[in-house]
């Protein structure tokens, strides 16, 4: 079985030892993309969120074997222009404390900015319900994300 992903724009063939393992493990351990965080491993916290074909998903819930040919984007693969904006907004609004949840939220913010009908129909608080933050109380993240929209 051969599985090839396009991760952050680059084709990468998943070695046999990582087929059948979680996308999260492959990204972190094999590709060194440690911006993708593991908080719970159960899809509760959203710290490991990546874009799969442009849609946000928890990489702890996906097995590499079912992703052949898919386009994966981690925080490392988000456009520099976006990261500069996001980072500035986080600093301005105080949206980061410990920062462990932030990469997942950055990926969600990129998805929000890309728009689409699903995004425009719902409030940020609903769309980001799957991303937990224990530090900030959310208010300042909401302010930063609203400023980015």
């Amino acid at each position, binding site marked *: 079985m051969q599985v090839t992903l396009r991760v952050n724009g680059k084709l990468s063939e998943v070695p046999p030892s990582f087929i059948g393992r979680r996308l999260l493990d492959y990204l972190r351990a094999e590709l060194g993309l440690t911006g993708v965080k593991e908080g719970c491993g159960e899809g509760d916290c959203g710290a490991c969120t990546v874009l799969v074909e442009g849609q946000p998903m928890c990489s702890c819930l996906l097995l590499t074997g079912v992703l052949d040919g898919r386009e994966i984007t981690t925080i490392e693969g988000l456009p520099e222009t976006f*990261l500069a904006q996001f980072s500035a907004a986080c600093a301005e609004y105080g949206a980061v404390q*410990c*920062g462990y949840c932030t990469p997942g939220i950055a990926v969600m913010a990129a998805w929000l900015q890309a728009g689409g009908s699903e995004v425009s129909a719902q409030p940020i608080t609903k769309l980001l319900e799957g991303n937990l933050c224990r530090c900030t109380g959310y208010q300042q993240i909401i302010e930063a994300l609203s400023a980015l929209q």
Partner: protein
Amino acid sequence: MTGEQPATSSPAPAAAGVPDRARGLARYTADLIPPGTVLVGLARSPYAHARVSSIDIQAALKIPGVLAALTPADFDDIALGHQGADEPVLTRVARYVGDGIVAVAASDQDALLRGIEALHIDYEILPHACSVDDALALDQPLHPAFLDNVARRFSAERGDWEAAQKRVSTWVEGTFQTQAVPHAYLEPRATLVRVYDDRLELVTGTHFPSVLAETYGEIVAGWGARLEVVTPDIGGSFGAKWEHPTHLVCLAFAHRLRRDVAMVLPRRDDMISGRTRVAMRIQMRIGATDDGELIAKETMIWADNGAYTGHGPSVTLAAAIRMDNLYRFSALNAQAQLIYTNNVPSECFRGFGSPQSAFAQEQLIDELAEQLRIDPIELRRRNAVQPGDTTLHGWQVGSCGFNDCLDAIKDRIQTHRRENPMATSDRYRFGYGIAGATHAISNRGYDHRFDRDMMSLAVEPNGVLRIESGEVEIGCGTVDLFAGIVADHLELDRERIRLVLGDTATVPHGLGCFASRTAFFGGRAALDASRRFAQLCGRLAIDIGLPADTAIASVIEAAVTANRTMELRVTGSYEPDHVTVPDESGYGNISPAYTYATHGCCVRVDTATGLTTVVCYWAAHDTGQVLNPQRARGQVVGGVVQGLGFALAETTLVDDRGHMQNPGYLDDRVATFADAVPIECIFTPTFEKEGPRGAKTIAEPPIIPVAACVANAIYDATGARQWRLPMTPEWVWRSLCAKGVLAPDRTAD
């Protein structure tokens, strides 16, 4: 014996500021584990209380990839616990479900899991107790030295109780139950141990690297090795990440195998063996005169230590006495006991014991106000502690803006009431609540030797100014605060400053990030170091032939050119001189300054379901001068939301066999984006002359009054007092039934 590892240390990681964190560039412990590192896992007890009768590791050791196993016998002489030293690294007697029995090291995850499965451990099950009442009634001790299962007793009696009692005309009283709550930080506990020729390097997120280096250093010295602690970026802690058995398991494997080892706890393991807030039953009564003078307060506390003693003693003592310091009582009597149970070990958690005791005290103050027909804010105002007071517990009050906080909340509630006439119906009731709080900055009783901070400033050969501190960035903004103070004082570009925090091999001593002390102590050390650095630059300038008042940046530039950066190194420090080590009853001026707060809120209670919705929340804080308004606001909002979780939703559920029923975010009910409520943060500034630039601190105070504030609002809305946390729909509904608030067809039973 020389290992395969490089003989020199990797450069200390620079602590990440907000922009880097936002880009995902912060490096937490798990991010630093290289491929090929030996992985460690634990076989945990499935029983709440059991003696391990036999252990067989032979089958596990035969599994390919399994490298070694450690058993309790490997740690017989070691017990952990800064305040109790009663926790084995691996135990012969399991005292909670999840207690570690055998540790396995393997070259990969699959081998590790198979190795743990192949262990044979036999248990002799013992009677267990998962509540303080059961533990007190248990006919056998959980720890041999504590026959009645009471780990610690505290007693604090102040003032003339007999005389005071005679002046009381009205008593109010109640018994309140608070719950255990997991800290639920996003970064699970992770440990990496690197092996170098002459030493072990422990990499882990912790509040106090210097204390870990000291505690584990002695143990590791017994193995003939040396220890340094490196603190990478920390993904939250809130009072949880101190000593932990997993650290020593990893150190022991690394020492034995001469290889780097790592352990990252799965979330479930983190929750069942992590730590929780100390659950307490608090029986309290407060007496006042008819005209509203608070006279006497009596407190009895039964606190659940869990299986082992973390910082439970300090937390329990704090719960027994700290909130007393908010008012001018004439006499106080507090008795507390900390009781061993077969629950997960408890720990300090943001606010220490004060969120628990505030839940009781601030509801009773409201109860008194109602009985005396005095406005609850007015009653607090009349009795509020004032600048210059020495409280009955020996706190010397410097700056104190409690009255200003009360006024600010009064104003917000009045305005809100006027502008938002509430559509109260039979089913939906609206109400307002308030609660006050006070908190110390650091705790002189924590380490009897000293309470101080140091900071070094050194110029690197390329002209970058390196800040070295024993304090750590736990998410509160320490990196930006330290860099900001130094950059500001020396008029340097922030980009030319690098921070190394909590690397015990290189940084000067710092006691650690706890008790809301870092901004205050570290901030003062930063100012002292900056002043010394400026003087040094003045002298070097003259030596190089520049005017003595040359800008610091230019002196640094000249030092780089002249290859004299080595000379630009200073260490500053701060140690307050007017604090005292408290006695056993907690009497003493434990902190160089004290903070004050008042919160207010508006809630809607659905009497059909008991569901409480926070409509609006106001948090007023006296934290002295505010150094960074955005970060300070972040601490307030974050603390309030954590407090709302404690108040309304979160709890650790344990079944009758001692198994935790909800070891995960979803079932613990951690607040989500959808739970975000509008919170207005109000700073009522004072000037604290002891603080850095007049500042006090803000990390813990915001969580303290929250549960009490919401409880008072529920009472205002419904007339039903709240005796237990969390105030879930079920329990609020039960309280409404007991009070007869519900229509007869909706009442319980």
